[in-house]
Every structure is written in C-alpha cells, then in structure tokens.
C-alpha cells in the first residue's frame, strides 16, 4: 500500500478535479469562438466521437478491475452480436438486451 499523508491525498483529489475542470472550462470558452457549421466544428465533433469510441474499446478490450475476470473473446463476440442485432432490427434496446443476455449466458455457463 502506498504511503501518502492526508494532506497529499486531498491535494491529489483537488489536482484531479482541477485537471478535469480545466478541460471542461477551456472547451466552454473555445465553443464561443468556433462557428457551429464550420469544418473545424465538424472535425472536433468527429474527433470526439472517435475518442469516446476509443475510450470504451479500451475498457472493453483491456479492462481493469472485475471485468478483467471475463474472457476477451466473450466480450468481443457480444459486442459483435449487439452490432449485428442493431443493423438487423434498427432498435437500440433490442441490441443492448441481446448483447447483455448473450454475455450473461456465456460468462455464467461456459
């Protein structure tokens, strides 16, 4: 176990909050200067999409904590199954329900 003083621990929490706040605040200020339909706004939006997808793929493929006790093949297969259901049915809830049920069955019984 790492040794930090109480002051250091609270300081790190403040720093973590400050780091996140700075990004949000600069985003808010910058949003006033970028024209809504400009190519720059489209690019920022596309990068945000790609980055969020990347964060979740990182969680899905290289999880930390308890999700790491499930096999990678099952997680990827269930994502693929969810995507397939979504393209076939065009219904988000069907896809989520299908992928989750498949995952529950795989993890519990295999």
């Amino acid at each position: 176990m790492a040794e930090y003083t109480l002051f250091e621990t609270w300081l790190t929490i403040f720093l973590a909050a400050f780091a996140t706040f700075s990004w949000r605040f600069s985003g808010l200020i910058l949003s006033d200067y970028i024209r809504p339909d400009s190519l720059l706004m489209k690019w920022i939006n596309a990068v945000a999409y790609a980055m969020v997808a990347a964060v979740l793929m990182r969680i899905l493929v290289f999880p930390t904590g308890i999700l790491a006790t499930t096999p990678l093949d099952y997680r990827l297969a269930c994502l693929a199954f969810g995507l397939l259901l979504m393209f076939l049915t065009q219904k988000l809830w069907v896809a989520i329900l299908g992928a989750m049920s498949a995952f529950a069955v795989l993890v519990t019984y295999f």
Partner: protein
Amino acid sequence: MTDIPLISPRRARIAGVFDASSVPGIALGCTMMGFAVIAREAGFDFWMTFLTSFSVWGMPGQVAFVSLYATGASLFLMFVAVALANMRMMLMVISGADILRLREAGLPLWKRVLMMHLLAITSWAQISYRQKDYSPANLRVYYLSFSLTIFAFGMAGTTIGYYLDDVMPPEILRLVIFITPIYILLLLMNAQQSVSRLAAVLGGAACPFLYAIAGDWAILFAGFLGGTGAIAYYQLKAYIEDKGRLDG
C-alpha cells in the same frame, strides 16, 4: 425544422428523467460502484471517494487516478494521467455546447460551467442521439434533467459501492459493469450523421492496436486518427461528387 414535434419544456424535463432512469442510469450507477470498490481498495475513505466522483465526474480519469494512487505514483504523474484521460472533455464540451446551442441561451458563465460539469460520455452521447427530437431550448431542459438524474445515479452508485461492495456478488457485478461499454458503443453507432459513425468505427477499431504500442496515449491518437480520417473521407467524397457534377 418542421419535423420537430412541439412539446412543452415540462414534457422534455420528464422525458429526461425517464430516459436516464433506465439503462443509462443503472449502467452508470454500476460503473461508479466499480470505481468505489477500486477506490476503497486503494485506501480512500468514503468522503475522498465521494468527492472524487462528485468533482471529477469522468469515469476513465477517476479509474486512472485511483489505480495510480494504489501503486504509489507521484502526485505529478497522477495529475498528468487524469489530465490525459479526460482531455476528451474539452472536445465533448465544445461539441455539446454546440448541440445544445448554449451560446444562444444567454446564460451567465457560472450556470454554463455547472451545466458542462455534468457533461459526461453518457449525457453527451444521449443529446447527440436525441438532438433531432427536440428544439434547442427543450434539448437544454432535457439535457439538464437527464444529466442531473444520471449524476444522482452515479453518486448513489459510488456510495453503495463503497459501503456494500459485497451486497452484489462479483458474478453479477461484472455483468452489470459490461453494460456501460456496450450501451455507449451501440449508442455511438446510432449517430444521426454517417461521418460520426465512421469516426467512431475508425477510432474504436484503431484503439486496441495503438494501445499495445502507446498505452493510454492510444485514446488520443485513435481519436485524432479516427476523427480526421472520417472527415477527410467525407470531404473527399463531396469533392469528387461535386467535380463529377461539374464535369458531367
């Protein structure tokens, strides 16, 4: 704009609470339970855990933070890791403020700061998915009630996870934690614009490969590659189609 149904702000507010109280709220609450379990193992007391969720409100950054704390990393390294993991917040806020037409709302800066503090992956993906169903004013009402509900679920999840991490058996908890990545990834693939879907596919597909080389920097690289690739593809396609029209 004629295809947006006229509804009262009150209905938008109720719809926000309602939409948040199903899959998104439960998924986020359980993800935060997972965070609280890691934080307790790392040696955080309850208020440290609660205030981290409350003030950071960005899951990947929080997990990076407590994981490093558990390994005894330097304060500087923790700061850099959280900043890196949450850099996407800036882009999400720019995009979210645009979707919500926040500039037109004429709100004071402190209100806009508070509104954007509530912006997380779930609420951003939700307003992006819902933007065609509401007028900008109603979308802001919808966003506020949706994200406040999500926030309440997240804080409840943090509290429950900290005190009762054995109330839910690990076999169940790991199923429930799987909901968040599945839900958000499928939501992204439901985006209105094809350029957004392409960006998500490219960024999501590139990330695991880049992660093997670049570690957590992979998220930034995958984001810039995927987003730029998708924009370049559609710009090029539009240019070729334009040229074809002019030549033909």
